[in-house]
């Protein structure tokens, strides 16, 4: 599961200007809240519900979960990850450092 692996990245780089934003597309708030508490997630956790639709996931053209985008300081998507395998967080960290700059 991707989300718990993002917590250390957020803790490590938040002071340098990293924001981690998780968008929950499941329509089961109770389950999500439980998951977040169990894993002590502290970054931005948002719910993407509007009736039965995932409005933001559609807007971002996300059709498979997990999918993540890395956005630079100008607001441009520079990297994307579709799916998540163990070890991907290492590559993600490299990309984050590249975008955070010196």
């Amino acid at each position, binding site marked *: 599961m*991707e*989300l718990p692996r*993002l917590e250390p*990245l*957020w803790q490590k*780089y938040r002071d340098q*200007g*990293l*924001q*981690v*934003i*998780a*968008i*929950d*597309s*499941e329509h*089961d*708030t109770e*389950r*999500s809240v439980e*998951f*977040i508490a169990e894993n002590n997630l502290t970054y*931005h*956790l*948002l*719910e*993407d519900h509007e009736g*039965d639709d995932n*409005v*933001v*996931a559609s*807007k*971002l*053209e*996300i*059709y*498979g*979960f*997990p*999918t*993540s*985008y*890395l*956005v*630079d*300081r100008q*607001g*441009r*998507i*520079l*990297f*994307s990850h*579709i*799916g*998540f*395998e*163990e070890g991907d967080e290492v590559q993600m960290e490299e990309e*984050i450092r590249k*975008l*955070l700059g010196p």
Partner: protein
Amino acid sequence: MTQRTWTWLLCVALVTTWGCGKADRPADDASTVADAATEELSEVDQAAEETWAIWEETEDPEVKVGLARDFLERYPDSDHTGDFLGSAVYHFTESLDRPDEAYELVEATLSKVEDADTRLDAQMQLAVLHSKTERLEELSTLADTMAEEHSIQFTDHLRLMELGIEAGAWNLVVEQAEAGLAFASTQAFKAQWPDESDEYAARAGQRRSVYCMAYKGWAQENLGQHEAALATFSGADDDTTYSLLGVDDTPLHLYWGKTLLLQGEPDAAMAKLTAEALFGSKEAKESFAEAWTAAHDSDDGLEERLWALRQEYAKPLPQFALPNYEGETFESTEFIGDVMLVAAWNPT
């Protein structure tokens, strides 16, 4: 071993979401699973659930195949047959290198199955096994048998195409692609998923067509039909749709690029592969790197080029506003100036 298992499970999930599923299945298909979960479990469902619980706790492939074997001995003919066979086939072939035992299990199970759907699931696992062991003739014969015995659907043809690609059964891929094309229309999609809108069905029908053409073209190239392969890819181009980041939502550009590379056109290959290499699959990135190396006689400058292309292909993050679990709204524009990692997830 845990890592491997999870990687595999993720791959299965990805295949479901981004392979067959993305090509085809309506997005809300998962809701039926949630509905089933609230109903009372039958004996076999209960047994399956218990078996999976033990399965997840162990890292030993020997224990896993034992669990699958025991379950299938007790319940050879259920909705779980395909899943247990699939998992056993994976471990027998990938972890234990004992494909013969996988054959024994699949064949013993198949001999006890009467339900048509379960039989098709089990046959598909036999096809996986033929593909992994590269028994091309058996694979081809089995595909014929499946088509005779069942009215097989687009997703089955797609799966057979993928198995054919993995095993290098190029004639089978061409046959299955042609059979799949018969399902590549709005009406054919609506016949299977009547509740979907015409608009969705039209797009899904086109996507089915592009998938078939992408696989067919790649098979043609591998059969030495170079001109035909290029014609197949060009024929699919107009029906292709692209993601926010310009990535083709089928394997068309990946196989088109790989074909151009094989044909000694590395620059043309890179042009087809760019968006895929930047934002899509690892395979596309590898093919792009290969094309770069072919064009420049070394990989010098590749990373710099990719970084420059990334700047060129980058798209603005669409604006959005969403509430957190306390009901407080966050606007994406608040974070401009910071680096954002936006992760879409669901807890299931």
